């Protein structure tokens, strides 16, 4: 989409805190029309690449982008999300997935041979339930559609659910799942981190559950700092002893 020339003068360091309007790099050519790149959270203005949000600069090879430190979850098709049921319709449920848009789960997804006349939706899923789902359809012209057809998807019936900042989700999962592996192996808990900042934790006892939650909160508050994996490892070793 944006042709980045090989000669890029980069003005910021990797993991540096940047703010809207901060110039990240200077390019060789000038682009006449300002262009915004939503995935990288930067925009191009003349010959400058500028940060559009408050976040951490990410420098890879010869490419510059920003990892936002704040902001609500923005839906993407294929994302795993955990939604809270807030409404029951005649043929569907309405879920709050902490996004700017409400999500819809059609009854046909959950119930075989569904007929609005014979089935009472509340017998299956009611207001207040948490559902693990995937985003099936999202085009900006209409409401989000969710699907629960898949392994591990469906209504949550055990464990606890906590909410974290969606911008911290990549940090809680870690590079190639390293941080999440650390959490699950040390606490012995089953942890699912959904893209919309909701975490489902299933542990064998109350104590492990509490420690898992504390560890996640620790990661959430220090997401922008280096050496976090070590800090978390030390924290878990201390608490579980």
């Amino acid at each position: 989409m944006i042709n980045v020339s090989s000669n890029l003068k980069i003005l910021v360091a990797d993991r540096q805190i940047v703010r809207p309007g901060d110039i990240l790099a200077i390019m060789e050519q000038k682009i006449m029309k300002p262009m915004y790149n939503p995935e990288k959270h930067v925009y191009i203005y003349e010959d400058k690449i500028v940060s559009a949000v408050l976040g951490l600069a990410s420098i890879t090879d010869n490419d510059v982008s920003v990892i936002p430190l704040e902001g609500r979850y923005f839906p993407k098709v294929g994302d795993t999300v955990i939604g809270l049921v807030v409404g029951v319709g005649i043929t569907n449920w309405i879920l709050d997935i902490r996004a700017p848009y409400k999500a819809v789960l059609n009854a046909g997804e959950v119930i075989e041979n569904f007929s609005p006349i014979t089935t009472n939706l509340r017998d299956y899923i009611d207001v207040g339930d948490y559902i693990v789902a995937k985003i099936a359809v999202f085009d900006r012209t209409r409401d989000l559609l969710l699907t629960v057809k898949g392994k591990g998807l469906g209504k949550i019936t055990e464990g606890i659910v906590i909410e974290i900042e969606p911008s911290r989700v990549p940090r809680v999962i870690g590079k190639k799942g390293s941080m999440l592996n650390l959490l699950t192996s040390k606490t012995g808990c089953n942890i699912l981190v959904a893209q919309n900042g909701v975490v489902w934790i299933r542990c064998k006892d109350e104590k492990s559950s509490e420690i898992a939650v504390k560890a996640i909160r620790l990661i959430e508050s220090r997401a922008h700092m280096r050496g976090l994996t070590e800090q978390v490892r030390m924290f878990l070793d201390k608490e579980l002893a």
Partner: protein
Amino acid sequence: MIEKPVLIRDDGLRHDGRKPEDLRPIKMQVGILKNADGSAYVEYGKTKVVAAVYGPREVHPRHLALPDRALIRCRYHMAPFSTSDRKSPAPSRREIELSKVIREALEAVIFSELYPRTSIDIFIEVLQADGGTRTTGLTAASLALADAGIPMRDLIAGVAVGKVDGVLVLDIDEVEDEYGEADMPIGYAASIDEIMLLQLNGVLTPEEFRRAIELAKEGARRIYDQMKKTLHDKYLRIIEK
């Protein structure tokens, strides 16, 4: 009949001891409200303003939603206790005007096409008014938007230049506004060098106007730098803990 106070003393200093190019002491903080997606508190001298941002979120009432971008709503309001005589809580014509003017300045920098059919609601509440409430409010709103993670082209710093006793002065307070000959608030996006808000109340010659704009931009740059530092320091606090 109250006598006009001396605005420029014999030694060339203003009634509060400031030099013509001095800003008032400015305090800024972000993330001060638990419920808002983004928030900020800003003081220019004795003027105190809180700004809160909610969004992007679903638009209520639904028929106001725009199909291709986010609806930006802004409410500038003075608390009844913000002035020496109680101000009626009902929106005055001045508040409606300032809400519009601030909204238009922010609309010019927010990348609203990213969130169709949503609204971004900005609330600016003046807690104590001592001149420059719209510029303080614009600065606070800009910080709150960055705190909420909403993508923008740049931050906007607001500052007013006035003419008192024939002298151009920066960041006028209530006394200087009331008894001065001109009041020119501006909103300036320093990184992209664009003026987003410009109003003039009173009389300036074209030459005075040119000098006033330069003085205002210079003052706005200093405020802009402080805004950037405030956003950066939000994460430093966590490191210190």
